[in-house]
């Protein structure tokens, strides 16, 4: 199984990694979809999404370009009788893809260059059960299982000896969390608040060196809790929304987390037969740079939900922004593509795609 994981990581390493800041803390944080937008719950939905990202990082003197394509999320929602609903979601919560390289460092008459490439992330399997009362009041609870792995490949080159050693650190993650959400709807205005409480995240580390020896280390930490709310307002063709997420750090000696914040504005306009979407946001990371500077990210995006007759929607979104922390700036452009199959039970007799 571990060989399979390593093979998958190796294959994915053909694509270069991106944010350097993913080397901090637990990696780059991704909020689940239901913390940024109020999801429709009157129909069965099955959605998959892919992300391609291009990043140009610079510290003012040197630069790196990186590009990556990867699956981003899988979502399933199924309405149950008595206005209950069941949701299943697999999404990447913390991204651990990055590439860093050291300057040439000289000691004992030798010059050392270290290159570190990391692939993987902490995934979240989210199960939820929700219910609405008279389409006015909404409550939901969920359980999240954190899992996944990451592979760090350390390449150490001693220039004078033309010798390069390679060490691999394999991380295996496992953890749990719960969350709850509640809200109400008053005419065109809908509000929800949520709180996600994480339990410990266990990490086991396997060190594989050039000579194939292994050392296993175990650690645990508590990811930041998530607290926030969403407000949306719908008109006939237009829908506007504003989401706020705060990441609340728990006491930890493993990492120095700081409160993280995300504010994102969303908009949708029905322009038959498409739905045009737009977003703009600001993210302040839950970790700081090595020099103690905050990491912030500002971004905008536009997209469209394109109806596919008898199936659902195709989703396309392009976004871009600037991520900054200390001396490092990252210009990033993302292209998201996805498919969403929808079905309203009771109104059609066909099964999926039939």
């Amino acid at each position, binding site marked *: 199984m571990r060989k399979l994981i390593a093979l998958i990581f190796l294959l994915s390493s053909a694509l270069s990694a991106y944010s350097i800041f993913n080397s901090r803390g637990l990696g780059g944080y991704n909020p689940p979809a239901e913390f940024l937008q109020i999801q429709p719950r009157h129909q069965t939905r099955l959605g998959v999404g892919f992300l391609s990202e291009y990043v140009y990082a610079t510290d003012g003197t040197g630069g790196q370009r990186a*590009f990556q*394509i990867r699956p981003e999320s899988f979502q399933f929602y199924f309405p149950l009788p008595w206005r209950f609903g069941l949701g299943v979601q697999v999404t990447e919560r913390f991204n651990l893809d990055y590439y860093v390289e050291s300057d040439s460092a000289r000691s004992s008459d030798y010059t050392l260059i270290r290159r570190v490439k990391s692939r993987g992330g902490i995934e979240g399997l989210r199960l939820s059960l929700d219910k609405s009362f008279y389409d006015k009041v909404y409550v939901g609870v969920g359980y999240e299982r954190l899992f996944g792995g990451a592979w760090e490949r350390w390449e150490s080159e001693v220039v004078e000896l033309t010798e390069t050693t390679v060490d691999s650190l394999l991380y295996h993650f496992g953890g749990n969390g719960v969350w709850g959400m509640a809200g109400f709807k008053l005419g065109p205005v809908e509000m929800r608040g949520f709180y996600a409480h994480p339990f410990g995240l266990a990490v086991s580390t396997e060190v594989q060196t050039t000579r194939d020896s292994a050392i296993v280390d*175990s*650690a645990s930490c508590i990811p930041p809790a998530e607290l926030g709310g969403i407000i949306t307002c719908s008109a006939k063709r237009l829908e506007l929304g504003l989401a706020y997420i705060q990441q609340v750090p728990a006491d930890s000696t493993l990492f120095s987390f700081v409160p993280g914040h995300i504010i994102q504005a969303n908009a949708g306009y029905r322009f038959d037969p498409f739905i045009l979407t737009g977003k703009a946001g600001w993210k302040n990371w839950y970790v700081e740079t090595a020099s103690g500077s905050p990491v912030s990210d500002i971004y905008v995006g536009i997209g469209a939900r394109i109806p596919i007759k008898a199936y659902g929607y195709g989703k396309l979104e392009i976004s871009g922004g600037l991520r900054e922390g200390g001396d490092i700036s990252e210009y990033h452009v993302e292209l998201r593509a996805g498919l969403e199959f929808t079905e309203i039970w009771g109104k059609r007799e066909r099964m999926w795609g039939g």
Partner: protein
Amino acid sequence: MQSRKSLKELKMLYGRSAASILVLLGAFCVFLSGCEEGPLGFDELERGELQVHQVIIETDTVVGFSEQIALGGTTTLIGGRDSLTEARILISIAGLDSITAFDSVKLCLRRYPADEISQDNVTFNIYPVTADWDEEGCTWFLADAYSNWELGGEFDDSDLITEITADDDTVELRLAPERLDDYNQGIILLPQNDGFAYLGSDEKASYAPFILGFDGEDTTKFSSLAGADYYAAIYDATILEPYEAPIPDTLIGAGLAWRVHLRFPLDSLPQDIDITSADLVVKYENFFSPESTLDFVCYRMEEPYVWRYSEMVSAIAGRDSIDVTDDSLSISFVGVTQFWADEPDSNFGLILAHSFLQTSPSFGQEKRIHALGRITGTPKLIVTYTTIPQTRFPGGD
């Protein structure tokens, strides 16, 4: 009809656009995938020191296997001397009773061809040996495996039999019938000038010595087969004056007898390191060699050193080839050093020898003597290493 046509055109147009978009996206991906990677961001890791460590480790154990070996079974007879040692040759002939049946009888010694190995012209004085000796057991100190004799063999130096010079491919010694008893007992060849000559021994099929009898026009070769009409069996050995090395010096040569056991204490190396280089550096002085280059090999010990019964890994751990005039050798064996650093209990040291150690198993390794030199000073192991990266999630909270 018109609307159907328009729909068809739209579909075609839509299809072309979709194809164009896909091609553009593909080209975009190919362009972007040519990523540039430069030195950026390593400080953000806050782990993994940027330092190459170097340590020089000296041996805590250097053991020469043996300075006294019986060379009666060697395939080569070495005769000669230099400022450090002297090699004498012992020859005895069993049988030879029919020597009187010939006008003359010659012992023919075969010198290795000059184009095969380089050697010197050496003149030998030949004296009769006065003590019993055994081919398999005689050394500079011993007549056989148990009996001491005068250093270098007991012989009557007042009874010079003859003088010969090894300056050709075949060296002939005329055998006189009245000295038959001396030939049976044995003769000793004492070198008279510096340099070494290499002769085939009775164990060497291609250059083994032989005896010819001449009777008028007829020439008869004596046979070593018992019961033959003209029976004569030749036994020979080299006895070598042990080199009295200064205390830190150790003899090293080819063959089991002159392997050298070295061990380096690696306790000073920290755990969990990546060895980037490990060079065994040995100061060396050539003693004698038939060739212009010397090949050294080292083997890792599998078990604690127990002299000739030591077990070592059959695979060669490292090797070096040097010119005979070089004063040091250097063997890289990163893998073995890494293994010892990871498994300190397996550090039983290594065996260093000239590379003829395993070239001719049919003759037995201990019977080979091909080259000899000495290790001067203390062998050193020069190690460079880097520390392995720290985990991102160290144990603890």
